[in-house]
């Protein structure tokens, strides 16, 4: 959470739906980093990630009227747009084969060698995340950021389906403990 909270989520959504310019600026300033972080992790390509980020915000802006607060928080909705648009970009363009494989490998390898932790040391909160076991982080990243299904995670990690579920719940409970 970078800048001072100016709007509640409800206010922000209402202002965006009435096509308020300041609200959009606020939305971008507050959420672009988090969304870009997800896209960067999925693409491992900063230039491509920035192109996708732009498309993500255009899509958010054009579809804000279809956002339904009763089905989840604003960020969850935006995160899904970012995730799906990134995956669609892989599928539609030449990146398809190369990048997707790279991403898949990254997800598994990064957590095994433990080097990626240092990336986030500059952000205070990230230090806490180091308390999460690498396999917990992997499962969250694959599901939440990568949009993988249980079966896909099971296949990628070699874990049985039931273990994927229990590990997911444990990871999130641990996350909540750390972040609240």
């Amino acid at each position, binding site marked *: 959470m970078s800048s001072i909270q100016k709007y509640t989520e409800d206010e922000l959504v209402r202002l965006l739906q009435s096509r308020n310019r300041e609200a959009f600026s606020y939305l971008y300033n507050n959420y672009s980093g*988090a969304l870009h972080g997800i896209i960067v992790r999925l693409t491992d390509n900063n230039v491509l990630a920035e192109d996708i980020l732009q498309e993500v915000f255009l899509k958010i802006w054009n579809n804000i009227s279809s956002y339904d607060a009763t089905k989840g928080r604003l960020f969850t909705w935006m995160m899904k747009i970012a995730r799906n648009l990134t995956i669609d970009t892989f599928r539609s363009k030449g990146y398809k084969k190369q990048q997707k494989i790279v991403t898949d490998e990254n997800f598994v390898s990064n957590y095994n060698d433990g080097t990626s932790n240092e990336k986030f040391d500059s952000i205070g909160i990230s230090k806490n995340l180091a308390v999460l076991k690498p396999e917990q982080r992997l499962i969250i990243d694959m599901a939440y950021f990568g949009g993988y299904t249980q079966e896909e995670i099971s296949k990628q990690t070699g874990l049985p389906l039931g273990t994927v579920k229990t590990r997911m719940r444990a990871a999130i409970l641990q996350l909540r403990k750390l972040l609240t």
Partner: protein
Amino acid sequence: MNVEDIISSGLLELYVAGLASEAEKQQVNTWRKQYPEVEIELQAIEIALEKYAFAHAVAPAASVKEKLIEKINFQPVDTTTPVFDINENKRKKTSTVFWKWGFAASVILFLGSLLLNLKFYNHSKKAEADLKSTKQKLESVVAQTKVLKEDIAVIQNKYTMAVSLSAQPTMPGATAKIYWITNTGEVMVDASNLPDAPAGKQYQFWAIVDGKPVSGGLLITNNKGMKIRMQKMKSFGSADAFAISLENEGGNPTPTKVVSMGAVSKI
């Protein structure tokens, strides 16, 4: 399943993380509407993952925002269709509607004017006929007035002497008036009070000059059904009396049956 069981089931975490099946999603959607606790729990999980994402935030280049602001349409129009097209369509629609109504209106106006034309034509025909009959009436009135004026002029003439002829026992009701213009000797007879002459008979006018009847001409009492008022007779310089007799058609040198007579009053 009670609320505690739902929360501890692990399904809510899978739901938020996107790992739930379609059936499980439906189930959670029902629960979140049903139980406020479930909604609160879901929000808490979402916030946890949201914070996780923020912890991994990577700031994009400043140019991304600038490009975005340029691309975004902040106009309060919730569509990607260019504004121009919308207006064009609207205008076309309006103009079609305009022509439709315009056509309908012109047809109505045309029919209306046709009816009015017909009405006015009939009116003018009637007015023309009325004018014609009025003209005829006026002409006849003018003609009558002219006759009456002449008659009145005779009566009003200061030299005119009026002589009333009285009915004789031979024909009761046979009265007439004589207007004798003494300075010129002209004699006018108003025979309108004389009964129509029987078939084959005719009235004859007489002046009694020096005790002898002198014929003043034949009288017409009926001209095609119209009574003749004043009739000009022969002129007399002097007369003692005037008389009308009933004679065979064509008249007689001497009166045979005097029906009306009056003496000229001597001043």
